[in-house]
């Protein structure tokens, strides 16, 4: 009897163990399933990827050109990374190389709290605070633009870059530091010539995970980037990202209509992008560990 109970519980444990695989496949399957009908019946891939004419609910001439949305995601993510990567890695270096144990602990707690702020609160901050700051600093008519979204996303993806980056720096053996210091290098030289090259794979993984976070972020960019489906020409242009488009339009699209299905196609695109980014980051970290 007891043996049977134990067998049962072990079966349950194994089942839960593989559940993560089931869920990832489930996500792909169900998102794909909803978009499949459109995808396999004359879906214009050329138009989707290379046209910026997004008129999903037009009566006469429906067009699903997602280029402007892709450009929106790309521009906001790029700006966010331009800000978050140097600051995130700089902060990781400071925490790992310049701090005593106490300061290190409290900075890590602060970063953890920064990471915990919900994205809708970030969006609200972008909508109210940043909006006004940008209008008064740059005298633009509207403050909901690439710059606003980029700043918010930078603050949101910095914690992950710092924590993974700090792990990567911690993994550099102390003997490297000691050898360099014994040769009389300055702190700058130590960082640029020894630490960053030695930890470059881990730092790259940190950046990739930051990119993944920024590409997939929804509520913050929905609220902070304005709602203009066009390719931005400057950081003061409003844009709309792939994620924001789904969030904004899914509620209005009738279930199983073409419009509804094209939103799921965007979902498949997003899933694919983040899957590849996370896979790459994981492979890099793994390769690092096995060395």
């Amino acid at each position: 009897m007891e043996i049977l109970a134990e067998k049962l519980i072990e079966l349950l444990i194994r089942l839960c163990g593989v559940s993560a695989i089931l869920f990832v496949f489930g996500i792909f399957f169900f998102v794909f399933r909803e978009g499949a009908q459109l995808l396999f019946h004359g879906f214009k891939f050329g138009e989707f990827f290379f046209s910026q004419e997004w008129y999903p609910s037009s009566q006469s001439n429906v067009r699903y050109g997602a280029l402007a949305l892709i450009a929106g995601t790309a521009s906001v993510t790029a700006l966010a990374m331009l800000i978050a990567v140097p600051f995130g890695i700089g902060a990781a270096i400071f925490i790992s190389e310049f701090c005593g144990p106490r300061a290190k602990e409290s900075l890590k707690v602060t970063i953890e709290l920064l990471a915990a702020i919900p994205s809708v609160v970030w969006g609200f901050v972008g909508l109210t605070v940043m909006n006004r700051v940008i209008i008064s600093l740059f005298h633009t008519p509207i403050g909901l633009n690439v710059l606003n979204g980029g700043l918010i996303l930078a603050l949101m993806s910095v914690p992950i870059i710092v924590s993974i980056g700090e792990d990567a720096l911690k993994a550099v053996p102390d003997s490297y530091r000691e050898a360099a210091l014994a040769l009389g290098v300055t702190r700058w030289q130590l960082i640029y010539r020894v630490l960053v090259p030695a930890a470059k794979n881990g730092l790259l993984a940190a950046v990739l995970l930051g990119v993944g976070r920024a590409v997939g972020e929804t509520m913050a960019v929905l609220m902070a980037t304005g709602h203009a489906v066009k390719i931005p020409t400057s950081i003061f242009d409003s844009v709309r990202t792939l994620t924001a488009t789904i969030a904004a339009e899914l509620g209005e699209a009738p279930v199983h209509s073409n419009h509804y299905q094209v939103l799921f196609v965007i979902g498949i695109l997003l899933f694919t992008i983040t899957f590849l980014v996370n896979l790459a980051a994981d492979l890099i970290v793994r390769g690092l560990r096995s060395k």
Partner: protein
Amino acid sequence: MFESTSFTRSKQRSELIARAVFLLMTMLMVVPLVLIVGYLVYQAWPILSFDFLLTNPRNGMRAGGIWSPLLGTIYLVVISLVISTPIGVLAAVFLNEYARDSWFTRVIHLAVVNLAGVPSIVHALFGLGAFVLFAGLGKSVLAASLTLAIMTLPVIIASTKEALSSVPLSFREACWNVGATRWQTIRHVVLPNSIGGILTGVILQVSRAAGETAPIMFTGAVFYKAIQQGDIFAYGLFDQCMALSMHLFTISTQVPDVPKALPYGTAVVLLGAVLVVNALAIFVRFRLRSRRKW
């Protein structure tokens, strides 16, 4: 005799500059946190009261409090926790105690990492396709909670796994040596010794689930739903509900002429709840680390 040469002086100077530059970079991250929280609290201060928490939104959400969304969020968090905690803990037990280092384990690990990286709006699409439509739950508390549960699963798996792996192997070996089976060892030695770490994971899960908006937008949360004030059993499993995060989105973008303090108050309650819960997790972790005997 030991006068500093110009070389050592310039070295010291560059040392100082390096420290200053990296400190500045770090501070530029910490300062926004303080400024943002401070500014939100300052704007919300006039409206914050128990009354604000305990009354329903009124007058097309332009007056009143946040009782109905607050209760909705509590429902979603608790139900998603009940679903995902057992699955997550057992999955971590499998990964740490049963799985050997094989390609299959690696695939599971990869799946967990990717599950954590799936954008929240894709989770929303999944929840809509799988729970609302395919399983026929409709837009409901249950469908939204299930979506949240899957979304927060990686959090509990990661922290439980870490807690389990910090229990020394000698504990298990001692137990096996007296003839205990694998499960008995896990049940009576490994799990009790890692309960603190698991608890930290559960707390972090609460904060994650409470803050999410996109996954519940299309699976169960609605713009507005009036409920009986003070009735904590006001929502059923198959009802739609309001949620704090969704409410903040609604009153700050969808409803015109909302008095300014109202969204700020909602933001501060949501932010406060999440930060307090996270601080609790950090506190638990510190207490455990200082109490650990091995």
